[in-house]
């Protein structure tokens, strides 16, 4: 039987790892992630979770050891901001070895402790799948789904599920905890992805020469990663739909969540807690007769190109809110990715960009309403400047 409990986002993350029955947890403290590994330590100390828990000496080692453990058992680690930056090198290696490791990232800026997406965006091209969450329930559910997505034979890529620090990590909300038996039925036991045992030496050698033989084509490794990441679009949709069947909850189509987008002229595009605040703004605007909806990006990697092409063909303007900056490029990172998706359309909507919420700067409902009004103005064909603004 599922039960409700009021808990902070970090506890929901710890429950996701527990319900997935992880067997290896590597831990290192960094605010605002730290309480995740504290909750897991308690669960193991109390006998609620049977896993190896290793207090590592830094995030680089957290990532490196969880990577090799994932050759054999289901593994988990968690981090934030600078800790994630410190993991960068072994993160590439985890993808390169095609290990379905799952990691929680509690967003923290690269400067200061408050949240923005600079930590995960700095890992954009490490080959990890990246799935964003808007609330504690979503963190728990997405955590469980992440294992199933990462471990799918068609994908087998490491996966980050993530949420904003403080706003989610330390905020209490009621969360429905699924029953262990149901999670067990939804998420089958871990299949060792590699023959690593000594008696499997021949198999291991054959696999190595097949996967990493530089004389075949040195680009093969990346080609296969790319194919797997693109396959993940299908797998994420399937897993999201299956989760709905088991637990009665799902998140859009798994890749994007379209909020009140029927018959709108314009949409805002946002991620994480900004998207959840934007829902309130959209409610108020639609009450006042404004034809504007919201598209929340759930899967940042793989990027939902197909969904944005479909949505982009139906609206006249899209206003993208970016809690990140890519200096030297016209706009934020999701803005850039979105415009890239829309390029092939015969008739493209107008796109606007708003940098907001950097290093935890508050993004209020009024701020989002103003962004929506500007986007609607563009949808009416009026000239709006600047194209990219610092909100």
């Amino acid at each position, binding site marked *: 039987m599922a039960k409700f409990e009021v808990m902070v986002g970090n506890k929901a993350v710890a429950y996701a790892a527990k319900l997935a029955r992880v*067997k290896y947890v590597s831990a290192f403290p960094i605010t605002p992630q730290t309480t995740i590994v504290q909750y897991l330590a308690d669960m193991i100390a109390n006998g609620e979770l049977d896993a190896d828990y290793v207090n590592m000496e830094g995030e680089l080692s957290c990532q*490196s*050891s969880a990577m*090799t*453990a994932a050759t054999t058992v289901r593994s988990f680690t968690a981090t934030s901001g600078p800790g994630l930056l410190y993991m960068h090198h*072994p993160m590439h*290696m985890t993808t390169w070895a095609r290990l379905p490791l799952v990691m929680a990232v509690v967003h923290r800026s690269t400067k200061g402790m408050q949240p923005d997406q600079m930590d995960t965006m700095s890992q954009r091209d490490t080959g990890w799948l990246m799935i964003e969450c808007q609330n504690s329930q979503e963190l728990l559910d997405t955590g469980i789904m992440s294992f199933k997505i990462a471990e799918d034979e068609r994908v087998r890529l490491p996966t980050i599920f993530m949420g904003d620090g403080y706003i989610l990590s330390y905020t209490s909300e009621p969360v429905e905890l699924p029953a262990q038996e149901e999670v067990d039925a939804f998420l089958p036991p871990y299949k060792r992805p590699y023959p690593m045992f*000594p008696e499997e030496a021949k198999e291991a050698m054959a696999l190595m020469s097949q996967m990493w033989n530089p004389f075949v084509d040195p680009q093969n490794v990346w080609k296969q990663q790319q194919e797997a990441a693109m396959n993940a679009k299908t797998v994420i949709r399937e897993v999201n739909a299956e989760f709905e069947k088991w637990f009665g909850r799902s998140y859009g189509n798994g890749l994007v969540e379209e909020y009140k987008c029927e018959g709108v002229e314009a949409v805002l595009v946002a991620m994480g807690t900004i998207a959840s605040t934007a829902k309130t703004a959209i409610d108020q605007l639609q009450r006042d007769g404004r034809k504007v909806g919201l598209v929340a990006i759930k899967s940042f990697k793989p990027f939902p190109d197909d969904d944005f092409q479909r949505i982009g063909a139906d609206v006249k303007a899209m206003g993208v809110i970016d809690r990140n900056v890519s200096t030297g490029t016209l706009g934020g990172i999701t803005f850039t990715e979105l415009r890239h998706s829309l390029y092939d359309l015969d008739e493209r909507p107008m796109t606007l960009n708003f940098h907001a919420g950097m290093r935890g700067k508050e993004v209020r409902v009024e701020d989002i309403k103003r962004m929506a009004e500007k986007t609607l103005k563009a949808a009416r064909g009026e000239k709006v400047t600047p194209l990219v603004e610092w909100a």
Partner: protein
Amino acid sequence: MSKPVPLSKLDEKEFIVPANSACQGCAGSIVARIVSKVIGEDMVRQEVACCGPAFGNITQPVFYGEVFEGAGAMMTGFARAFNRLGRDDIRVTGIIGDGGTTDIGFQGLSASAERNEDMLWVCYDNEAYMNTGGQRSSATTKFAATTTTPVGEFSRGKKERKKPLPILVGVHRVPYMATASVAYPEDFIGKLQYAKPVKGFRFIQVSAPCPTGWNYDPRYSVKVAKEMVLSGLWPLYEVVEGALRITYKPKELKPVKDVLRSQGRFRHITDEEVDEIQGEVDEFWGRLQEKDGGPLF
């Protein structure tokens, strides 16, 4: 306590297949051959950036992590995961160079030793970053010319002493720590055989001269290694649960002068510089003898 075992006592089966891309006279590949024979069918090997890939023609499963700094952490993940599935028969073994052990890998080494992770870490010590062309490491001996400590009008080679890594590992009070040399395979095999079934963190640092980096005739690798032991430049000892024992005692140490001068990397050094190294060798050998049979600290 280890006992010397001759190579002829080992099973004939080889795990290192003939021919590899190591340099002529590579002592590192002797280390790899001996380790793979002694640990045998039970071995899963961790490799990081080092000369290892050149002599990595070993047929036991291997995980080549390009995480140069990650040997300790990666072996931790393997050891924990294998043990969790009840496979504590698997010997997680690292054949790691000196850079990946004493420099960039030192944090992970110390942390794995502190947590007493179940792994065997064999460092083949060729005293520099030889795979990248012989750059100085903290394992390089003082005054040695390397490609980043060249000898010139304003430079006498490396300025600093060799990091006393075996002692540093020993003071972590790990179940087993030893030094070894490719010139004394009986001693090395004995130490590996002793370490193999021990649970927890085991560390062996093996002197593995490098003709390419040290600049001597490749046929003399074992001879050079032997002279380093006979002169006290590389004493053979072990620390079992904190107790130190010298495993090979030359009756009288040979002067370091001829040993150093036989290596191109030391060809430039003056008599005063030889005396400085001789002084340090004598002092360290004296201390070892004082501690022999007793606690390391």
